[in-house]
């Protein structure tokens, strides 16, 4: 009798479960707004969501493209989009924008999600700690790192070979570098105009930063509260960089399509990041045609460094579905999605934030032999300027350094002016 009763209860419970499952309404349809940089078409970004949409069939993604001209401009456009009533839940943005978006209350802090979600431990163990740290502001995490970049010197192997030069050593000096650049620079047809240039760089922050780092300095101190332009090491590095063009004539002055020249073999060395691969692949350059080397130092001593930046995904404070948005962010930094960076064929060819992917065969096959030097440069590098007043500092740099690059102002004069102007901006903020 007891067993019949038990069996009846079991059947009843089973029926109840089946019935409840049958009458449970489908999950509510949810649309998540995703902001991305429109430098890559939407279908390339859509590839990142394979798997997520299958796991969350009730979710529809509203792709919101935002033109990416500068990070300040991109950030402002995101804010304008949100103020215009567009529901934005997940944002792709860069380290430069974190202080501004955090200070202005656009982004939601992610520590509460990280603390309560045991699934993230695997990611935290894998991601490079410097990148994670870089996307924090005032002790709170605002973006989870996805991809990163640092700059090294790319050299065209066939150009060096034609000039009778061996591949440069990783511990080369400024003198070695100058010798390479001078040897490569040639006026092959004798018309008085150089047809092959040794090296090219602009007065841009991301071109000059590594010269400063490799000479033990940078644009500003660690917390970006004090400019370092007037330091002797800074002036020395900037002077060397400037003299390559105006004193030694190994680099072209004015605007110059350096990547095209590099591919065409009329430029021996240029500055670029891991993402540079993406621009060389369609131009027909294979990973065997070029390689990367550290910036030279004055004496050949010291750890090779550069400046680095990273991007990542964050959740807006206005998100109506923060938990689902968090699932989306977790998906975007998963191994599956980050692997799409490796081939250089998706939205970005930057280096993946997960250290486990650094030796992936796909990445190795699509990268030059010394690709791992980017990781070494990251270890010893400085972050790009990331302060809420980034745009003002960048403009001050451009204002004076563009005059140095036009040979209209001395390095010392520019450094003194930049130092004073940046100090004023920092004091105002």
């Amino acid at each position, binding site marked *: 009798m007891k067993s019949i009763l038990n069996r009846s209860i079991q059947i009843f419970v089973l029926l109840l479960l089946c019935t409840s499952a049958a009458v449970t309404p489908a999950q509510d349809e949810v649309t998540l707004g995703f902001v991305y940089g429109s430098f890559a078409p939407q279908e390339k970004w859509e590839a990142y969501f394979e798997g997520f949409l299958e796991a969350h069939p009730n979710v529809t993604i509203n792709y919101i493209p935002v033109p990416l001209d500068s990070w*300040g401009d991109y950030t402002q456009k995101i804010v304008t989009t949100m103020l215009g009533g567009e529901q934005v839940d997940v944002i792709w943005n860069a380290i430069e924008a974190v202080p501004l978006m955090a200070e*202005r*209350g656009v982004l939601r802090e992610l520590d509460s999600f990280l603390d309560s979600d045991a699934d993230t431990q695997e990611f935290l163990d894998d991601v490079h700690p410097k990148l994670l740290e870089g996307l924090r502001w005032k002790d709170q995490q605002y973006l989870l790192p996805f991809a990163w970049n640092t700059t090294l010197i790319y050299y065209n192997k066939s150009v060096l070979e034609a000039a009778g030069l061996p591949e440069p050593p990783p511990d080369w000096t400024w003198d070695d570098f100058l010798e390479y650049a001078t040897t490569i620079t040639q006026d092959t047809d004798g018309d008085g105009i150089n047809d092959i240039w040794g090296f090219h760089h602009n007065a841009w922050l991301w071109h000059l930063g590594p010269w400063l780092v490799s000479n033990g300095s940078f644009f500003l101190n660690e917390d970006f509260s004090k400019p370092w332009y007037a330091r002797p090491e800074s002036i020395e590095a900037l002077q060397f960089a400037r003299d390559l063009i105006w004193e030694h004539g190994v680099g072209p*002055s*004015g*605007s110059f399509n350096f990547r095209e020249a590099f591919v065409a073999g009329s430029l021996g060395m240029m500055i670029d990041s891991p993402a540079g691969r993406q621009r060389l692949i369609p131009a027909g350059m294979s990973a065997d045609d070029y390689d990367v080397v550290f910036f030279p130092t004055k004496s050949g001593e010291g750890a090779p460094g550069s400046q680095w930046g990273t991007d990542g995904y964050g959740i807006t404070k206005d998100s109506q579905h923060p938990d689902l948005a968090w699932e989306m962010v977790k998906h975007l930094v998963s191994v599956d999605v980050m692997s799409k960076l490796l081939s250089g064929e998706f939205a970005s060819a930057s280096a993946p934030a997960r250290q486990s992917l650094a030796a992936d065969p796909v990445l190795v096959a699509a990268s030059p032999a010394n690709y791992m030097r980017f990781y070494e440069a990251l270890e010893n590098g400085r972050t790009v300027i990331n302060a809420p*007043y980034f745009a003002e500092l960048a403009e001050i740099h451009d204002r004076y350094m*563009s005059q140095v690059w036009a040979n209209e102002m001395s390095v010392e004069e520019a450094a003194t002016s930049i130092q004073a102007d940046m100090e004023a901006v920092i004091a105002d903020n």
Partner: protein
Amino acid sequence: MRAPQMQEAAIRARAAILPRQRINSLALREAAAGYFFIAPTLLSFLVFFLIPTISGLGMSLFDWDFFSDPDFIGLENFIELSQDKLFLTTLKNTALFAVLATAGNVGLGMFIAIGINSIQWGWLKACLRTAYFIPFVISTVVVALMFGFLLQESTGVVNYYLARLGIDRIPWLSSSRWAFRSIVLIDVWKHVGFFTLIFLAGLQAIPSELYEAALVDGAGRRVRLTRITIPLLTPSLFFSLIIALIGAFQVFESMYVLTNGGPGDATRTVVMLLYREAFGSFNMGYAASMAVLLFFIILTLTVTQVRLGDRWVFYR
């Protein structure tokens, strides 16, 4: 009898035969139709001009960073503006650009139009007119990118051919001295076709009898140009000067793409600074005060031109 007088007579005639009530309803219907037809224009004027202008005026009185609530600060933005050296530099650059670009566009446009108009072959006239007008329909950003390639110092096509002629490379966009001139030249290249078209329309409106009479009186080419053509082109000249000056004061894209205001601040204009303040530094109120000041500068110049126009513009 002229058209308005005929209309008036017709209304009076209708009033004489129609009862007052019907007249009122007819007038009402006509008024409603009138408002209906001007509604699209009125609406776009309100949405795209009047409301933004009033918002801009209001915003200039606030300290607003785009994210938090705006603080009312009265005229403080304008006081700060008057002491801002960078703003004064950009104002000087903008004014110089406006003078040079207006002179180039209008002067050259008139010269080209007179030249084209004197051509006897219709097909050549049409070809030249089209050729000069084509740059005007190309996006300014595309034009800027194109000239960016052409004017590269080391590998640009222009310097390549100059070198062939034995002329040293010119730092077209990378020196303070040349960058400003280059951008004025590019602006003239892009816009001169538009002004040529305006002058061509003005030239075609001049009655040929005037030239025939002048020829009979023995007037030479120079006299015909200075006594007939130029005086009768003054309405076109007046219109072109106003349009060119307003456009030149708002210059932005070509400088933004080609030099980003540099080297130094050599090619930075008020609109560029305004854009940086608004969308780089998020000083919306300060940027709005620049826009307001620029608006009043353009308004003053336009009103002055209109007032002075009465003295030199000749309407037939």
